[in-house]
């Protein structure tokens, strides 16, 4: 593939279809700027500020845009609140839809056939692959991203974090918790 993609890039530059500076900038954006630290800021703010949390749950696109996170693969956002009664998990069974502005590019496992096939059928067994066990009584709602809505899970705030600043809270939020394959 290395040779094939290099040949393709050379050809597309010769034809004037792409600008190499654009290619470099796209890569730089997702390598250094856009990633799960964005989503973690959203979660931390929702944990710390009840008004922001209410806004996030009502109009996630606007609430997330207020922090500067917008655009490609996050045009229509929905936030899902985890509670003791309900745990949310996100999957895309048809391809690999994923909220890029808040989480960056998806990890390999999210795009894998195993995750895409099993999550809607046996989410507890999938969670076990991540080392996560939920109480038997917790309802699991799996969100299959079949349209252009992109989902961000709002994990439960860990106990004993009342004294932490938003920046400290953000450092507690893992990417997987915002997909629903981890608890925090």
């Amino acid at each position, binding site marked *: *593939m*290395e040779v*094939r*993609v*290099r*040949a*393709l*890039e*050379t*050809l*597309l530059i*010769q*034809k*004037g*279809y*792409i*600008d190499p500076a*654009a*290619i470099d*900038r*796209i*890569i730089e*954006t*997702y*390598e250094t700027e856009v990633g799960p630290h964005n989503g973690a800021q959203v979660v931390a703010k929702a944990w710390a500020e009840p008004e922001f949390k209410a806004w996030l749950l009502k109009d996630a696109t606007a609430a997330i845009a207020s922090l500067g996170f917008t*655009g*490609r693969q996050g*045009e*229509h956002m929905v936030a899902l609140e985890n509670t003791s009664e309900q745990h949310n998990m996100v*999957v895309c*069974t*048809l*391809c690999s839809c994923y909220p890029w502005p808040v989480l960056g*590019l998806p*990890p390999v*496992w999210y795009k*894998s*056939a*195993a*995750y*895409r*096939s*099993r999550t*809607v*059928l*046996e*989410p507890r067994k*999938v969670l076990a*692959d*991540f080392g996560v066990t939920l109480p*038997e009584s917790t*309802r*699991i*709602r799996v969100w*299959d*991203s*079949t*349209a*252009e*809505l992109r989902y961000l899970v709002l994990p439960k705030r860990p106990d004993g974090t009342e004294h932490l600043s938003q920046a400290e809270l953000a450092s507690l939020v893992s990417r997987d918790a915002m997909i629903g394959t981890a608890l925090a």
Partner: protein
Amino acid sequence: MNGVHDMGGQQGFGPVLLEEKEALFHAHWESRAMAITVAMGASGQWNIDLSRAARESLPPAIYLSSNYYEIWIRALEKLMLERGMVTQAELASGQQTTPPVQVSKVLTGDTVDAALKAGSPTERSIDQPALFKVGQKVRARNMHPQGHTRLPRYVRGHVGTVISLHGGHVFPDGHTLHASPPFNVPVQWLYTVVFDGPTLWGEHSDPTLEVTVDAWESYLEAAV
């Protein structure tokens, strides 16, 4: 299309394998492949649904045995070949031998940020009232279109409940009807519908499971 990409509920793929040290890209070409695909998407010669349809209609054995960015590249090559933008010989050699076709836009280093920040919203105004309301029981139609669709097989024929309405959104099945611009851009109401695990998977399903899909109006019919 009842393609191999429609993976929900399939069995036999084994455990979800986690990487000990995750890398954003696992080879240099993956980063180039991602960015080339994103940049070519801006050319306006196809739309997101045509691009998904191109990936989904790769030969099943190729789809299943390819790394995800390889699927992207194979689909990108197919999209460009179909539109006469490149030839097989050019792809093989990496050298231009035919003139380019006119494209509507070329992303440049200084227009990338704005393009990524803007994205491509699919919400559109819609005049006709929604057929279904929150709380209503609906059945996912038993349909098997030859072309592109976003209704997964595992919900077809099953009854669920509408939990939200999202306004009008570009309807993917119709968005793929014209291969080149100007595209057909039909708009339908978009819903989120929740299904109970046992409804989808039978008596041995996890009783605490619920699955939602986002479904355009013509994917659904009222269930009584």
